[in-house]
């Protein structure tokens, strides 16, 4: 077991290192001219070269790589993602302020989605062919792939503009409210830590619609997978045999749940990785200044350090999630080790 865990963590590190390199080279191999974008296409060669030098782009690609990775003592390996070419501020701090907003949104959406989807999935698996099953099947298929940004707009139109039961999509708090002091960066946690109950409820008020929008999209595939996985286990030989050998209902329910879990967990992990980057559009619609919005600005400005930073952070978080998932699966299923 220990050797499996160590090996898996080692592979995770290799992947992270591979990603750092891929990100670095892919961006530089594409035919874009960030210097021209920065100084304008009509600038004199002098200005152009000066800008190029100040960004460090006149050095060889290997020196730039060393600088990025941190062979001079400060770089990715020390947690320093460099300085934004556009604003001059540290990418690490930019990521650090925006990431919690995204994580908070995505995590809460997952909690809501799972809380809705898993019970529905279990209920449909128990009564296959029933009314609930048939309608939920269509929903699972439908919600699995939908333009969430458009649904978000429609929800805003309906819940805010028509019904008035949601706030205007203009950020995490009412414009006039003072934000709680930053401690963790997660506004819901910070407001509680600083005793700002008003800010806590105000943030929830602003978050409910984006969370519902994401949960609406996410619950589709999770329902589908839960139903499929439960049905597979319920029809398995070993559950049948457990019933035939007189085990108690509680024991059988526990076995069923355990055996249904791995595919659901795997799917959730994949969706989580997908959503970290995919929340971009929802953040944009609701003017939440998260990592997604940060990355849009970085990309549209050809701000290489910021692009590298966001892609790297999101990918590494996904890898960590996959890693945790793999380790959980080993504990659930003894067969995984054997593979």
């Amino acid at each position, binding site marked *: 077991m220990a050797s499996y865990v160590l090996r898996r963590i080692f592979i995770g590190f290799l992947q992270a290192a591979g990603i750092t390199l891929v990100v670095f080279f892919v961006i530089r191999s594409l035919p874009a001219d960030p210097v021209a974008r920065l100084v304008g296409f009509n600038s004199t060669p002098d200005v152009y070269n000066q800008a190029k030098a100040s960004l460090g782009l006149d050095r060889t690609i290997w020196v730039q790589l060393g600088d990025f990775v941190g062979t001079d003592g400060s770089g990715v390996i020390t947690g320093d993602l460099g300085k934004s070419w556009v604003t001059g501020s540290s990418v690490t701090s930019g990521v650090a302020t925006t990431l919690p907003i995204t994580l908070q949104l995505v995590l809460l959406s997952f909690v809501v989605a799972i809380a809705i989807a898993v019970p529905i999935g279990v209920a449909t698996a128990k009564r*296959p*062919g*029933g009314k609930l*099953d*048939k309608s939920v*099947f269509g929903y699972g298929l439908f919600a699995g792939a939908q333009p969430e940004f458009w649904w978000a707009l429609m929800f805003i139109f309906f819940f805010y503009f028509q019904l008035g039961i949601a706030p205007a999509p203009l950020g995490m708090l009412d414009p006039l409210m003072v934000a709680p002091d930053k401690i963790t960066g997660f506004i819901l946690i910070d407001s509680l830590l600083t005793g700002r109950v008003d800010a806590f409820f105000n943030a929830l008020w602003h978050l409910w619609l984006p969370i519902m929008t994401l949960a609406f999209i996410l619950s589709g595939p999770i329902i589908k997978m839960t139903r499929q996985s439960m*049905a597979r286990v*319920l*029809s*398995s*030989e*070993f*559950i*049948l*045999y*457990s*019933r*035939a*050998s*007189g*085990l*108690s*209902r509680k*024991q059988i329910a526990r*076995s069923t749940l*355990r*055996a249904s879990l791995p595919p659901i967990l795997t799917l959730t992990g994949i969706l989580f990785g997908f959503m970290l980057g995919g929340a971009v559009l929802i953040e944009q619609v609701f003017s939440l200044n998260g990592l997604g919005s940060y990355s849009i600005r970085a990309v549209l400005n050809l701000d290489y350090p910021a692009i590298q930073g966001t892609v790297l952070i999101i990918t590494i978080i996904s890898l960590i999630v996959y890693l945790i998932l793999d380790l959980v699966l080993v504990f*659930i*299923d*003894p*067969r995984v080790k*054997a593979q």
Partner: protein
Amino acid sequence: MTEPILEAKNLTVIYSTLDGPVVAVEDINLELFPGEIVGLIGESGSGKSSLALALLGLARYPGRLEGEVHFGDKELVRMAEDDARLLRGKEISLITQKPRQSLNPYLNVGTQISRVYRAHTDASQSEAMKHAVVLLENVGINDAERRIDAYPHELSGGMAQRALISMALSSEPKLLIADEPTSGLDVTIQAQFLDRMWRAARDRGMTVLLVTQDLGVIANYCDRTIIMEDGKITSVKETKDFFANPDNAYGERILKLARAHRTTLEAPTMQDNDIIQVKDLRKTFKVEDDKVLQAVDSISFNIKKGRSLGLVGESGSGKTTVGRMILRLLEPDSGSVELDGENISELSLKEFNQLRSKIQVVFQDPFDSLNPRWPIFKSIEEPLKLHSSMSSGERRERVLEVMNAVGLDSNSVAQKPGGLSAGEQQRVCLARALVTRPEFVVLDEPTSALPPAARAELILLLKDLQTKLGLSFIFISHDLSTVRELCHDVAVMYLSQVVEVGTTEEIFADPKHPYTKALLDSVLFHDPNSRRVDKARLTDLEGEIPSPVDLPKGCYLAGRCPFVESRCTAEAQVLTITNGKQSVRCWKASENHPFGNS
């Protein structure tokens, strides 16, 4: 008349799916009486398994039951799950045909056995664990103390089945439902189990419902026989009566087929030269922990033109590996194969590929052997495309000719294998093997994946082709009665070695090796008047086949042989010629020591 122990009234099993309900068992009435063994036969999909489960008050997900099942004074269909579970696994036990899948893959074996034990007793956790160890020891699992920590995927299918069987019988149930319990077991192990079940029924008055496809099992062990077709029972008869006078179209058909080929094999026109000569073939495989699995140990034999050799053995004996090495689908560690005098082991694979039209093969699983996307014409035609310069018209003619010879309708050329029955699929495989007029064919258990009727038909066809075409072949099988029908010579393999070889008459009339004797005794004849259980037997083998990774020092059979003596475990056995042509790997047989009850 005694009271029935179980009575089903208007029993129906319905599966509800997203696409609507499906009725698998329809309105069945059935009585089972104390102490009787009832055989249930029927085609695949006739609802046998669903009925068997329904008698426990269970339906496979997503199914439900209608009607009544009375067990003593209790009614199982409407009974609360919490009450019914107290009967299941205690008063009524189940054995399924998929032992490994029936165990929970997430729990170790000890936990599973002890959970079932504790569900029906007041035993403590540690007592239950001890019980689990004892149970595993009872079924001959070595090192049971350690094996209870094993997970199901670490057990062999045979081992898992024996664990399930011993669990099912250990609660001394009043009723045993056995759903094709021996389908994955070797013949000698099958015989052990069925004998034990028969004993429990006779001694303790246990009632058994035995679902099977094997007429031999019915004839040898069952008191009554029930036929199921399309979810309904179409015949219930005393077994002797059923065999004498089936009175049912399906029953008549399968009995007729089973009896049709009881004719003697014609002697081939003797020809002296060998078509195949196998010399000292050896093969080992590396397994985990740097251990070595001995698959084939120094096998030699030759087959003369027009003759056929039956290579007989149980799973793990290495018989299939021999076949694959002859075909060069697997390279031997050492040894050689000569085809018609030419040493084909020395050729490069590219050179040998040119010769493949001369040596062909039919595999065990017919569906798996055919490219599922190709119409059968294309599959049969392919060898001609690769090995002949025929025009497409000539090829078409030849394909139709060979299809006709194996009894395939020429209208089916455009069909995909999925649309054909298993028997037809195997005919396609046979046609593909014969289309290039090969000199030699390897038949690797071609009949064992087929349902009984199709199996009987294929044997008749092979016999027919043998006389018409003068085909030479090696027939790999675990089924002695089929070998007797088709082969002039027999070689018996056990754990990588040939233990006895001779002509079919010699081997069947006077088997010398204890293993051959046991194998012959475990053949279940389709005759309720000549039952295995009525005969006195000395030859039964004990326990399980040893692992080919850790082979014993002396005779490989010593651990299971009823005639074992100290010399058997001390010295390795050699294949020795006894009289004429029959050779035996057993010092007792070759030195004419008496086999008796020691």
